[in-house]
C-alpha cells in the first residue's frame, strides 16, 4: 500500500467555531484558505469535526498532538493566560513537553526538542 502523506488530523469538538477560534487565537494557527473548520500548520492540516452530529460518540484525543514552539515554558504561560487547561510540563532529557488541553479536552503537547538526534549506533 502506498501512503503518500497525512492529509489531516481530525480533532473532535462539540463546537467547531469555538475550536477554530482557540487554535487560531491561542495557538496562532491560520484558518484554511479553502475549507471551513480547518486550521493549517506548515506540514499538516488540523480538521475539526463534531462527531455527535454524525451519530458518533465524542471522544477527545488523549495521547496528544505535538506542536513545535520556540519556548515551551513561555508558551505554557501564554496558553494558561488564554484559558487553556495546563496538565503538566516535562523535560525528557532531549525535549521539553508542555501538556495542555483545548476547550474540548483534546491533549496538545507544546514541544521543543533541544538535543541533537543521534543514530542508535552513535549513542
Amino acid at each position, binding site marked *: *500500500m502506498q501512503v503518500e502523506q*497525512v492529509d489531516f488530523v481530525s480533532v473532535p469538538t462539540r463546537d467547531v467555531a469555538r475550536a477554530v477560534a482557540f487554535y487560531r487565537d491561542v495557538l496562532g494557527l491560520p484558518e484554511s484558505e479553502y475549507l471551513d473548520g480547518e486550521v493549517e500548520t506548515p506540514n499538516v492540516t488540523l480538521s475539526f469535526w463534531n462527531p455527535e452530529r454524525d451519530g458518533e460518540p465524542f471522544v477527545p484525543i488523549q495521547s496528544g498532538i505535538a506542536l513545535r514552539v520556540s519556548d515551551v515554558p513561555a508558551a505554557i504561560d501564554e496558553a494558561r493566560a488564554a484559558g487553556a487547561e495546563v496538565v503538566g510540563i516535562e523535560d525528557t532529557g532531549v525535549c521539553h513537553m508542555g501538556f495542555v488541553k483545548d476547550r474540548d479536552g483534546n491533549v496538545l503537547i507544546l514541544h521543543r526538542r533541544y538535543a541533537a538526534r543521534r*543514530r542508535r549506533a552513535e549513542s
Partner: protein
Amino acid sequence: MGNGIGAERVDFVAVPTEDRDRAEKFYAETLGLQKNPLSTDTWVEFETGNVTLALVEPEKLGIPFAALPFGAIAIRVPDVGEARAKLEEAGIEFEGGVWDSGVCNGAAFTDSEGNGLLLHHRYAPYADGSQP
C-alpha cells in the same frame, strides 16, 4: 490578536498503543510506513512524508490507554478502493464502505490498537483550481 503562542508545525502525532511491538508491525508491514532510523528502544517513530507518528505506551507512564477517535488520522493514498481492498486482504476490518463526499473518497478503519484511521483521497481541485 497576534499569533498566539506561535505554533510552528506539528512535530508528531502520538499514537497510543497497548502492545507497541504489535503496533510497529502494523505500521511497518500493513501500512508500509518507514520507521525512523533515529527511533530508540523507548521512542519509536514512523514517517508519513509530512508528519511523524510516534507510537507511545501510555500505560507505562501510568496513564490509561485511550484509542484515537474515529478517523483521527487521514492517510492519503492514490486510490482509496484499491488500498481498502489490500488492507482487507491483510485482515483489516473497515467501518463501512468507501464513501464519496463529492470532493474526496474515504474509508474508515482501525489500527492494531483500535486507533481510528482513515484512507483518504481528494480528487476534486480546490475552489481556486489548485490541486490537493
